[in-house]
């Protein structure tokens, strides 16, 4: 669908930020771009969504409905979150009531704190980022492009973000996102590309060709009655989901990071009840989780 052919980019007479980038993204793909700060990830995303023009080469096959989530959404506007989203929906061709209803559903799922009628400028960084995410999903995007989407969002929104990505992909849309943490990229993407020195190369490794294998860890309160300590599970590498039950937590963690997660759990007085390797499909994931809880 979307194809970059020998794309190079530099601003004015400055250094080359991207050189000879060839990239292809098809419907259903979830592509992660990893690289250090300043490596050109954001520039490539801006080229993909059409905000920026390549200095040489070309980007072809850009679909009509593109969802774009910038890395910083420093909202200084006085319009409310719901009103802003309704306006964005109208610009995308929805009717006012349809846009408002869709915006309300998205904000409910993202659990916006601060009120949907609060002015955008009063929202915290994380909540403003939720609004940025919601505006990209008002109309089912054929291409969803997210710049460092995990940073700034709170732990509970991480799971919702992963669901959104899976839904867009399942509906035949392509998803491209960046992150500087490889563990996160490998967990959520079906393909990972690395950017360094302005060049983009497919990542060789266990994740190539499909989602990385995950394990599901069920942690419970120990039978001794000891009270386990609170842990921010999403801060651990490779953790994609942490669902809480009454006395249990079900973690989904990338296989290569499961030992770290287990060690942290044990150090915080959790008891490991089971460790399983579920199917890799998105449907079976949520099913297994619900069954465990």
């Amino acid at each position: 669908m979307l194809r970059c052919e020998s794309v190079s980019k530099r601003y004015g007479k400055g250094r080359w930020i991207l050189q000879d980038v060839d990239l292809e993204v098809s419907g259903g793909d979830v592509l992660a771009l990893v690289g250090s700060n300043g490596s050109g990830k954001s520039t490539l995303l801006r080229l993909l969504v059409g905000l920026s023009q390549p200095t040489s080469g070309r980007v072809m096959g850009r679909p009509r409905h593109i969802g774009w989530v910038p890395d910083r959404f420093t909202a200084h506007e006085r319009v409310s979150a719901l009103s802003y989203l309704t306006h964005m929906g109208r610009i995308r061709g929805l009717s006012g009531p349809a846009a408002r209803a869709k915006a309300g559903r998205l904000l409910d799922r993202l659990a916006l704190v601060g009120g949907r009628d609060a002015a955008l400028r009063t929202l915290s960084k994380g909540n403003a980022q939720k609004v940025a995410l919601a505006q990209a999903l008002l109309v089912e995007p054929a291409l969803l492009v997210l710049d460092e989407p995990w940073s700034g969002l709170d732990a509970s929104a991480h799971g919702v973000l992963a669901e959104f990505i899976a839904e867009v992909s399942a509906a035949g849309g392509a998803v491209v996102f960046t992150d500087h943490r490889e563990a996160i990229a490998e967990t959520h993407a079906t393909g990972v590309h690395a950017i360094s020195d302005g060049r983009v190369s497919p990542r060789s490794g266990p994740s190539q060709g499909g989602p990385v294998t995950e394990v599901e860890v069920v942690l419970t309160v120990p039978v001794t009655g000891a009270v386990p300590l609170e842990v921010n599970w999403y801060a651990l590498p490779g953790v994609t989901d942490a669902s809480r039950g009454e006395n249990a937590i079900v973690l989904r963690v990338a296989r290569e990071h499961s030992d770290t997660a287990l060690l942290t759990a044990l150090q915080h007085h959790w008891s490991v009840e089971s460790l399983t390797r579920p199917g890799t499909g998105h449907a079976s994931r949520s099913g297994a989780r619900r069954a465990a809880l």
Partner: protein
Amino acid sequence: MIALVRYLFTVMLLSQRYLAPLLLFVGLLAVLTSSDSGPLAATYGSAAGGMLVCSVWLTMGLIGLEDQTHRSVVVVTAGSHLRVLLGSVGTAALWCLPLTAAGLVLPLLFGSHTFTFADAVLGTEAQLTCAFTGIAIGVLCSRLIFRRQGYALLLALVLLLAVLLAKGVSPVNVLLGDLQSASGSADVLGSTSALLAISAGVLAAAVTATHAISVRRS
């Protein structure tokens, strides 16, 4: 496009950035047209001069309102840079309409005139000619081209002086000259219509240039 203009209009309304140019316009009208009992053509010439300055201010304020990140979201949502730029120009023109109405009515309250239909048409044409030229200057001096507002302001002042003083070249200069020397509004209606068309052309050229430069830089 209507949804886009509606959004930009709302953002401008809530930001209250329209207030300073609006007050300046009313102030200029009060100073320039109070106790005036001469022909309305010359009076509306003064109102058009005020409109020129205020439309530059309104346009620069409107385009500078959103930071780069917000604008990028609007651009992707609307589909292209050009569409958002056209939406901004349309919104600025929309904001100039109540000013035009004020420019038509307030001189009648401040002075003593006999008002005819030809006066109303001439006043509207004259103010829109200046509004289009002002929006053209505002777009060229907006944040899309100048990241630093000091340089933008300097260029805006230079361009304002140029369109006011460039004899025989600028539609604004020709218009103000015509209106000052006209004895009746009906006499200059035709020439003012031609100047309105020329200023619309100037605006189109400014939008094209701004789009080309901003896309090249993006």
